[in-house]
């Protein structure tokens, strides 16, 4: 993407002059850092890049990036971004959203962006809480969550966002974690290279309203045992010494394997035609199994905007018509 006329862009060149106003200690800072790192690695041109957000803490993101940015309304960012991308497919369009924005008020736009395979990169910061409105349970909060709006615990069952994206036909579905900066940066780089909708769920800690939501997964002491790094072509192994693994039974139920059975660990294929392995990993219990991060699914499929452009080009090639002829089409008559 670099051109010889311009010096390469450094990470700081992607930072806007706006003061970052997230709470001190918020996971959003490390995500911002990872995105800026990924953009520098990719040498993204500032003027070709658009970041569109909805409403929520995460949706302040565009103000902190020295690109084009559009901070829109609650839940609608994927729909607005679809218009941006279809009207100018050359643009590199990113959507930054949260679990309330994308899974609740904007759930419909989220699934339809996936279904159409629009060329958007959707980064969903999942802190399993409503932060900006001060701490109500979200559609990804665990059942029984005690909050101001659920004093006796939430009754709702949560979404598994990766499973939702897979079910909606997502062609690139991945997960990262705020504090795993290098892995997150790499995942964002990979999302950027995808043709079609690239969805990255990012586990993010809200230290004010849901502090420690991912503690049981991300604490240094447990991390190796609790995080499974998905690597294309490699068996599903985890643990400091990669001595435990995940295999599937004949019903595609996951099971833990170790010792002499370690060889049965499933060899991960992120391009698998069947979504079943990815769906199995996306829906397995976090209590019993480690949390997978990395790319769940990556499939090549023509994008929505390419289809739209192609139809228009074909229509223009087939028929050329002046405005005069358009207005005079059909039956006309003359009065003298």
């Amino acid at each position, binding site marked *: 993407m670099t051109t010889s006329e311009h010096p390469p862009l450094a990470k700081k060149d992607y930072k806007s002059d706006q003061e970052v106003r997230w709470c001190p200690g918020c996971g959003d800072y490390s995500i911002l850092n990872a995105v800026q790192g990924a953009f520098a690695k990719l040498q993204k041109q500032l003027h070709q890049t658009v970041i569109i957000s909805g409403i929520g803490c995460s949706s302040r993101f565009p103000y902190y990036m020295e690109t084009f940015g559009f901070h829109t309304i609650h839940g609608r960012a994927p729909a607005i971004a679809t218009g941006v991308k279809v009207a100018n497919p050359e643009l590199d369009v990113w959507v930054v959203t949260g679990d309330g924005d994308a899974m609740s008020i904007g759930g419909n736009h989220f699934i339809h962006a996936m279904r159409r395979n629009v060329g958007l990169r959707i980064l969903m910061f999942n802190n399993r809480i409503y932060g900006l409105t001060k701490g109500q349970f979200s559609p990804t909060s665990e059942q029984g969550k005690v909050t101001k709006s659920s004093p006796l615990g939430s009754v709702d069952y949560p979404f598994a966002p990766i499973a939702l994206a897979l079910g909606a036909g997502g062609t690139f579905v991945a997960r990262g974690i705020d504090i795993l900066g290098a892995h997150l940066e790499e995942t964002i780089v990979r999302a950027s290279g995808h043709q079609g909708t690239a969805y990255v769920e990012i586990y993010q800690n809200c230290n004010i309203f849901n502090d420690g939501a991912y503690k049981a997964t991300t604490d240094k002491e447990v991390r190796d045992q609790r995080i499974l790094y998905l690597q294309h072509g490699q068996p599903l192994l985890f643990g400091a010494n990669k001595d435990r693994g995940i295999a599937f039974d004949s019903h595609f139920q996951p099971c833990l394997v170790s010792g002499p059975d370690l060889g049965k660990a499933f060899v991960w294929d992120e391009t698998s035609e069947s979504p079943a392995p990815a769906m199995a990993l996306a829906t397995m219990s976090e209590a019993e199994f480690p949390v997978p991060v990395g790319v769940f699914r990556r499939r090549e499929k023509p994008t929505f905007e390419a289809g739209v452009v192609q139809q228009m080009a074909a229509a223009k090639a087939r028929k*050329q018509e002046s405005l005069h002829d358009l207005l005079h089409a059909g039956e006309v008559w003359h009065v003298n």
Partner: protein
Amino acid sequence: MHTDPTSNAPQKGLQDLDQVVIRFAGDSGDGMQLTGDQFTRTTALMGNDIATFPDFPAEIRAPAGTVPGVSAFQLRFSSFDIHTPGDAPDVLVAMNPAALKVHLKELKKDGVLLLNTASFGALDLKKAKYDKDPRSDGTLSGWRVIEVDLEARTREALASSPLDNRGKDRCKNMYALGILYWMFHRDVAPTEKAIADKFKKKPEIVEANLLAMKAGYAYAETTEVFQTAYRVSPAPMRPGTYRNIQGNQALSLGLVAASKRANLPIFLGSYPITPASDILHQLSSYKHHGVTTFQAEDEIAAVASAIGASYSGQLGVTSTSGPGMALKAEAIGLAVMAELPLVILNVQRAGPSTGMPTKTQQADLMQAMYGRNGECPVAVLAASTPGDAFEVAYEAVRIAVKYMLPVIVLSDGYIANGSEPWLLPDVDRLPPIEVKFAPPSSDGSKFQPYQRDPATLARPWARPGTPGLMHRIGGIEKKDGTGNICYDADNHAHMVATRAKKVANIADDLPPLTTFGPRTGDVLVLGWGSPRGAITAATQRLQQQGHRISCAFLRHLNPLPKDLEALLRGFKQVVLPELNSGQLAMLLRARFLIDVQSYSQVDGQPFKSHDLEAHLTQVLAASKEVK
């Protein structure tokens, strides 16, 4: 058979009329809209002035033979300039007892009732809620009744057709059309061509339809039931080239014309909704004109995608009806804050909620004006006739890109589906629309997304992809100039006033109002939107009676034309007929402290010019008394 009216069978009489109103009524599945449409095209090609009013149920096929399933199409054609599809019909074609039940009461006394007697069994009568056969209990006295068993006649005519009886019965509307073509001296050639085109791939259907039409024509010509044919001479019309047009078509064409003149591609984000869906259908067939259509997942995504397209540098448009407008309100507010051009077409229907989707109303005016949170002004325009919709769509684009703001265009079901002959504009004379995108910047300075044009207050249209223009905007309040988030009290007050002033500035461009009649007098009838035809017709008749009455019509509802107040003050009384409970009347009273009298009708139907005339006659009488 004779298709040339001058060589008509000599033994029958031929009477000249200056106008005729015909209403076709039958089951939804009886092809009434197609029949009406064919009569309309033929009549337009023969040089008459014509106005139409389709009136159909929301159900695609309500239970056959029932009152809710009745679909109708009224058309009026004349040898003079007309403004409405007429009030009471001279001729009613009733295809079944239910159609008779619904429409007979409106047929003019001594009018012609062409009644299909094929379905007058006990069950048919019961479905139509007739206790007794209306043909034998005096119900039909006072009208000239022509009974024809259309099914039997059509089957007879199609004896050699390969179609089964069901297929043959479906041609009965064409048999009825043939009868009317004879009665009203119409040329059958345009319909022959249209049917041949429509069923290109089914020659047996084409043959059966045309055979049925010709048989109907011959039946009327030869049987003694029909004694007289009628002739309506062509109307004197302004010279030029005409086509027949419906409101939704005209809105679509107006947008494409503006897009071509502005060299600005159109992006339509839309979600299907009655009665606006035809705009989506039509624009989706204009890909070769660079039009992108996006059938969104919902009304909100439809407007949101259009806003995104405008942000990218195309012209974002969304089309909908009232319920969709309700859902779009928040996003329209975003376009107001982001100061992006956007055209919102609201083809109004009868509400509230789902209301009556296929019926007409003008009750979304307040929603268009104020139906958003905060102080959130947008430009509001109204189309008044199918042909006028072309100019209004064009004007909406001009305003949206010049002032960088959303423009709501109000049409309604009556304009959308009604049709009239349209004098085609000279494309080279359409007013220019200038679009300026902010140029690339390389001096390293921060781009100011809200640095305004001093005359219009419009902000620059800065397309992503343009080097040096990187900036952040959004729905959150922002500092004028920089666009950075800003909650300062003074700045917010300033921005609220600026957004309002930007809309108000549009009035600088507007031509003076034209009036039909003198600019002073006893009564001014002020209208907007589809009542225009009925108001014009009523005013014209009262002027002919010597009354000092004029009428004028508002295309721009926000902002209002600058000369409106002076015009209103030039009359003793101002009457404002609208198909709502007096919304514009209330706005004008509040704005000018003038006693604008509302004349309101909220029943899902357009005004009848005779009702208006009767009301205005009373108003005029009162105005004499106050002398």
